[in-house]
């Protein structure tokens, strides 16, 4: 594998991984509780801890390599509507991956996300948030694909529950969608490496990438509490079947990266309790560049605002009573 190919493979892996960074936050808007999603980030602004998120995938490199990611995310509200999240990820790439083909292990770049809840409409179960994610260049190990440059990703998040559908469509009211659209801007336009043997220089261009995704979820807790209590077993009443899509499309400065969209489709299920949730999803690559086999991702997620409502689970600056819903 040439330097250039190796860099391209690592960059592609980094792009795919970026879409799988620990996603968290949960949000309550009116009747609707938007759970924390695993592959994309949801519009929630909350005090919470996703620990751990574990994913096992097989990369789209040639030859393909198995990759284990173990990550965490801690989100802290500064005010009711503004939070900062920190997300470290540790990766282990099995042979024949890694720069020398022997595999590699280490931390990915630390990611920090600033998120602000811009609008919430409890009646229509609609919420919009804006955010800025910063992947701090050089904070991770290059062997596992961590970039030496910082990447900034302004992102728009939204969530919409369908509880406001007419009674004739009661069956559809537990459905909800969430989504995100971000634009990843690398702090460096290119990296040039020189082969020590031949003296040849290779330049790798760092594309700007559209980071987008969505989730479709069917909330059995919502069915029970807002539509029809049909006497399902208690365990089932806590389940939310979900399908997530997490995609990345290079859109500019794509000379060496190409413009192929990579990503995964993740069908799975969440179990949501009063102060924590667990989830598991299959990770299905959308094309060869995104991976070579179906992977898996699982997460434990703690709602710190519910576990520690009077201490670390409340905003640093608060008006007194936690406003879980911004009523009209």
């Amino acid at each position, binding site marked *: 594998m040439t330097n250039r190919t190796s860099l391209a493979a690592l960059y592609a892996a980094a792009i795919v991984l970026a879409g799988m960074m620990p996603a968290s936050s949960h949000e*309550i808007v009116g009747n609707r*509780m938007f759970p924390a999603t695993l592959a994309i980030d949801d519009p929630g602004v909350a005090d919470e801890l996703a620990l751990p998120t574990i994913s096992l995938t097989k990369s789209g490199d040639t030859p393909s390599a198995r990759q284990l990611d173990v990550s965490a995310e801690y989100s802290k509200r500064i005010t009711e509507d503004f939070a900062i999240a920190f997300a470290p990820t540790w990766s282990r790439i099995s042979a024949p991956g890694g720069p020398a083909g022997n595999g590699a292990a280490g931390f990915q770049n630390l990611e920090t996300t600033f998120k602000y809840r811009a609008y919430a409409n409890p009646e229509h179960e609609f919420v919009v948030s804006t955010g800025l994610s910063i992947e701090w260049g050089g904070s991770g190990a290059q062997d596992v694909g961590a970039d030496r440059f910082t990447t900034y990703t302004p992102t728009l998040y939204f969530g919409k529950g369908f509880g406001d559908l007419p*009674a004739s469509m009661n069956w559809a009211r537990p459905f909800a969608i969430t989504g995100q659209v971000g634009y990843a801007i690398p702090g460096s336009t290119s990296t040039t490496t020189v082969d020590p043997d031949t003296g040849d220089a290779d330049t790798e261009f760092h594309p700007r990438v559209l980071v987008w995704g969505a989730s479709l979820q069917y909330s059995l*807790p919502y069915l029970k*509490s807002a539509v029809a209590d049909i006497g399902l077993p208690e365990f089932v009443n806590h389940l939310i079947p979900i399908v997530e899509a997490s995609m990345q499309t290079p859109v500019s400065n794509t000379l060496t990266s190409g413009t192929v969209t990579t990503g995964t489709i993740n069908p799975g299920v969440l179990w949501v309790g009063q102060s*924590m949730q667990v989830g598991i999803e299959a990770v299905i690559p959308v094309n060869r560049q995104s991976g070579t086999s179906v992977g898996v991702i699982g997460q434990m997620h703690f709602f710190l605002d519910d576990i520690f409502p009077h201490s670390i689970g409340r905003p640093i600056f608060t008006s007194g*009573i936690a406003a879980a*819903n911004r009523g009209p």
Partner: protein
Amino acid sequence: MRTAIIAIAILTSIACAPGAQAHAQLDHASPAVGSAVKSSPKDVTLSFTEAVEPKFSSIEVIDAQGAAMNRGSARAVSGNTAQLRVEVKPLKAGTYTVKWRVLSVDTHRTQGSFSFSVGP
């Protein structure tokens, strides 16, 4: 790694502890959510997942025209801090909407609504 496992174990045990506080969500209701009852109930009782503060909570029962059908305000149910009850006027055949807003004892506000119908 051991520290992380211990931290997860501690958090899990706290999160699953019976005394853990959280947002009060509707657990079940009488009449049941989405149900059809043959005759008018005397009251509507809501059971939440957490204890609530009756003084800062409300239940409203409205008919299809938007008229309030509850008598007075929501009251605590003796011996159960997670239940609220509101008396209702005699309800004719039709569909009624229950709107609730509660303040849990840990000061989280939540709200929701559901419908039930009366009639043969």
